[in-house]
């Protein structure tokens, strides 16, 4: 592990120790803020249920993520090639995207039920927009002189797209993909909170109703770890793909 990673870990441990000390020292009630030791203990006790819930949420998030990423990239390439269509469609896309996602969640539950499908569609929706807008921006922001050079070699639109636009867009595309990892988890969890019988969002919602705040925190811990892992995995992929940055 790198030095930065070690420093991050050390900082995290110090913070946890401080948290533990403050909660115990001031005698803060566990339903306001439980100590880390309590959260860890609870997480261990209910690990079976949390693992199931986490697996469900991760499945919804990654399935939606995959669908959204593929659709977003495909649409961006299509609109990069078809300028008139882009000028027609892009303002609408931006308008739809500027409405907060959570606002659509009840509709998704109404149309697609309270199972996994509604979560996957919601995640695909938000990931698709993020990846689409980032990728399109990257595809269009190429050096006009480089386009002229490729044209002088006899390259057509597709040649320019494949040899110049797509590789130039990779950095922006991967930023979109990286940012989308966390968003996909957030959207999956929020949509679960609004209606489902499974997943971490549902676990948190249930635990709040039962005033079981340690379980709320345990679920948050698992959600954070999954999010972090997903983010780190795509971040590692990004560093490999965009090696020239």
């Amino acid at each position: 592990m790198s030095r930065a990673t070690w420093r991050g870990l050390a900082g995290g441990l110090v913070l946890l120790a401080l948290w533990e000390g403050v909660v115990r020292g001031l005698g803060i009630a566990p339903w306001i803020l439980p100590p880390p030791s309590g959260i860890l203990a609870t997480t261990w006790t209910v690990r079976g249920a949390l693992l199931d819930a986490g697996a469900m949420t991760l499945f919804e998030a990654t399935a939606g993520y995959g669908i959204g990423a593929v659709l977003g990239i495909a649409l961006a390439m299509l609109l990069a090639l078809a300028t008139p269509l882009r000028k027609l469609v892009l303002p609408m896309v931006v308008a739809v995207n500027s409405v907060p996602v959570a606002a659509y969640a009840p509709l998704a539950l109404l149309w697609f039920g309270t199972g996994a499908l509604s979560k996957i569609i919601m995640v695909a929706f938000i990931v698709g927009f993020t990846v689409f807008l980032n990728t399109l921006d990257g595809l269009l922001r190429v050096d006009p002189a480089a386009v002229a050079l490729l044209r002088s070699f006899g390259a057509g639109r597709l040649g320019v797209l494949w040899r110049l636009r797509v590789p130039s867009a990779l950095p922006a595309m991967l930023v979109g993909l990286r940012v989308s990892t966390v968003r996909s988890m957030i959207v999956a969890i929020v949509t679960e909170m609004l209606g489902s019988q499974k997943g971490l969002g549902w676990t948190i919602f249930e635990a709040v109703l039962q005033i079981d705040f340690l379980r709320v925190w345990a679920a948050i811990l698992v959600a954070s770890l999954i999010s972090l892992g997903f983010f780190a995995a795509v971040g590692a992929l990004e560093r490999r793909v965009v090696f020239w940055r």
Partner: protein
Amino acid sequence: MTNAADQLDQLLTVGEAPAARTKLQLRGVSRRFGAVQALAKVDLGIAEGEFVTLIGPSGCGKSTLFNIVAGLLEADPGGEVLLDGAPASLLGKVAFMPQRDLLLPWRNVLDNAILAAEVEGRPKREARELARAMAADFGLKGFENHYPQQLSGGMRQRVALMRTFLFDRDLMLLDEPFGALDALTRAMMQRWLLDIWSRYRRTILFITHDIDEAIFLGDRVVVMSARPGSIKLERRIDLPRPRDPALLTTPAFNAIKRELLDAVEEESMKTFASGAA
């Protein structure tokens, strides 16, 4: 490997002093952008195998002329652009090297060099072999797998030039390829380019701001007028080849330089007076 060596041999074969067949002929080529007349009736002929350098004040329409010759821009109706004596769309027929090297950061030296060959649909492996065989000539041996961001400015320009040479066209169009290099590197690159040119024999139109460079490299120097750009002066350079740096201080060189400086100065003053500079 033998295949690549054969091809390289073909590339390297020096023809006899080329017959004065005209490679490129511009007749009355004009171009207007809205209210601005960038080019006005440019007449210019370049013989096969000739190295023509072109100088002119900034804003004289050099880039417009280059884009027309590269086929990236249409000339206004009335003018003629003839390649090998026939009117032709020049896009894809001229090896064009822009001012900036425009190397792609995700491609290594070899893959940058074969970009044009790849666009043409030549098999990658074959093109790479040819590029590998050429790398030594271009001072890139041992750097074939480096990425552009790992190279010096002079090396990057050589990769760009190799890319231009590998785009196997009789006419090469070089737009201030050494403009961004420091004086020492530039002088070295000029000698190197002459060496490469004498071996690979291409017709070259070379644009520059540097009168010394124009004289040192060219068979003929063409001076463009202030906007609207047209050909103000053509001067054959009869200095012997191969040329070496000592040439730069000879009286013959200086005489030519004075003549050209006067012409360029006059045009620069016009540009200055019109507030375009």
